């Protein structure tokens, strides 16, 4: 199932047209090919799907849902956390409606 955990943009590489995002402390790269040029900036909250930034999320909404995720994730160690986050992003079925 999609947790659709909001990710925070840490840095943007305009050359490669990609961003490094932080999802609950797990950092990874995501393509910006689906976003208007210049529309994604550091500190924005975004939704990631199979390696791409899919859209931006309103900051207030993002922070609200992050609070819930944090409570749960706080109970896990680092390794687990990274597995769970990647598993979510990697969900093969997210192609589903």
């Amino acid at each position, binding site marked *: 199932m999609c947790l659709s955990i909001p990710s925070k943009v840490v840095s943007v590489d305009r050359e490669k047209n990609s961003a490094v995002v932080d999802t609950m402390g797990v950092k990874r790269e995501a393509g910006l090919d689906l976003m208007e040029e210049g529309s994604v900036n550091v500190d924005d909250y975004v939704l990631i799907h*199979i*390696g791409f930034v899919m859209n931006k999320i309103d900051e207030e909404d993002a922070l609200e849902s992050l609070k819930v995720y944090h409570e749960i994730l706080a109970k896990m160690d680092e390794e*687990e956390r990274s597995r769970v986050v990647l598993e979510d992003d990697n969900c093969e079925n*997210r192609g*589903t409606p």
Partner: protein
Amino acid sequence: MSELKLKDLYDGFRDPATIRMLAAQIGEEAKALHEPLRIMEVCGGHTHTIMKYGLPQLLPGNIDFIHGPGCPVCIMPKERIDHAIALARMEDTILVTLGDMIRVPGSQSSLAVERAAGRDIRPLYTPMDALKIAKENPDKRVVFFAIGFETTTPMTAALLHAAVTQKVDNLYFHINHVLVPPAIDAIMSDGQAKINAFIGPSHVSVITGAKIYAPLPQKYGTPVVVCGFEPVDVMQGILMAVRQQVEGRAELEIEYSRSVTMEGNVKAQQLIDMYLQPRSHFRWRGIGDIPDSALELREEFAYLDAEKVFAEVLPTEPIDDHKLCICGTILKGLAKPMECKVFGTACTPNSPLGSCMVSSEGACNAYYRYAGVLG
């Protein structure tokens, strides 16, 4: 601690108090319904939420869920999987794809079986990795077996764009992207499934915008509520649908406003349009042919189209499912998984007869997994 799984993480989003409160509210307002509300959730993600949290048991008897065709694995006809197998069997070929597709049975084999037999078949984390694999293997052909609804289509388009602009000439595409609205239309115009409301898929709408559902309320008099995937989202969406029905409205509403707009991601839509066009026919597993229900490569990119370039190795016969499997009836909203004679006996997630049991999004899989919840 190490036993924690994604599934447990999910439990955190089940706020029993909120769900119960919404259930009570729905129960109260549903008393005013003139006829039962039969809601189709098109998306397999919703089916799972509904089954996992036992939502049907919380709702009054005059609200029923009908499971729809919303899983790219479930609706893939066997002949398309046979295509993937035929492509993977070609000399010097690497077949790459996303997800559960690898386990789905074709007419005689599956990609998993082929891989075990030594074919080079690789699951991808992101479609972009296909580009890397193609560049690292210049002496091989790499075929991307592209699947999914409107949600994953722009990622395929981005890969196409990269391959074309970077002139990577050993990457081919087998396109199986399907579209939600024509499928809903096919089910509704068939008239057998009595559906009077829809829960609209949210991830599709992030890309396309909720506007793609706009014709439905007018055409069929059904409310459509675009919903998120958490149980609270789904309950909220049901409440909105009940209200519409009680008040005699049939409108398109967005519950999942934190991610979905009417317009969607315009850049992604443009990218898709550059490379892909409607396909005049696509056979949906169990449902049959639905006109304009899928996409294909535009003519000018025919040189990248695995279906054209490797046409001579691809089987053309349509292949139907196992006689006992009633997936088609389920996908059309006419039956529930338990009505299948082999459900849970000859057909289980470990040895599936049909793809509704294979896919983690499939209705049979959801019923099987959460059977305990059903009691």
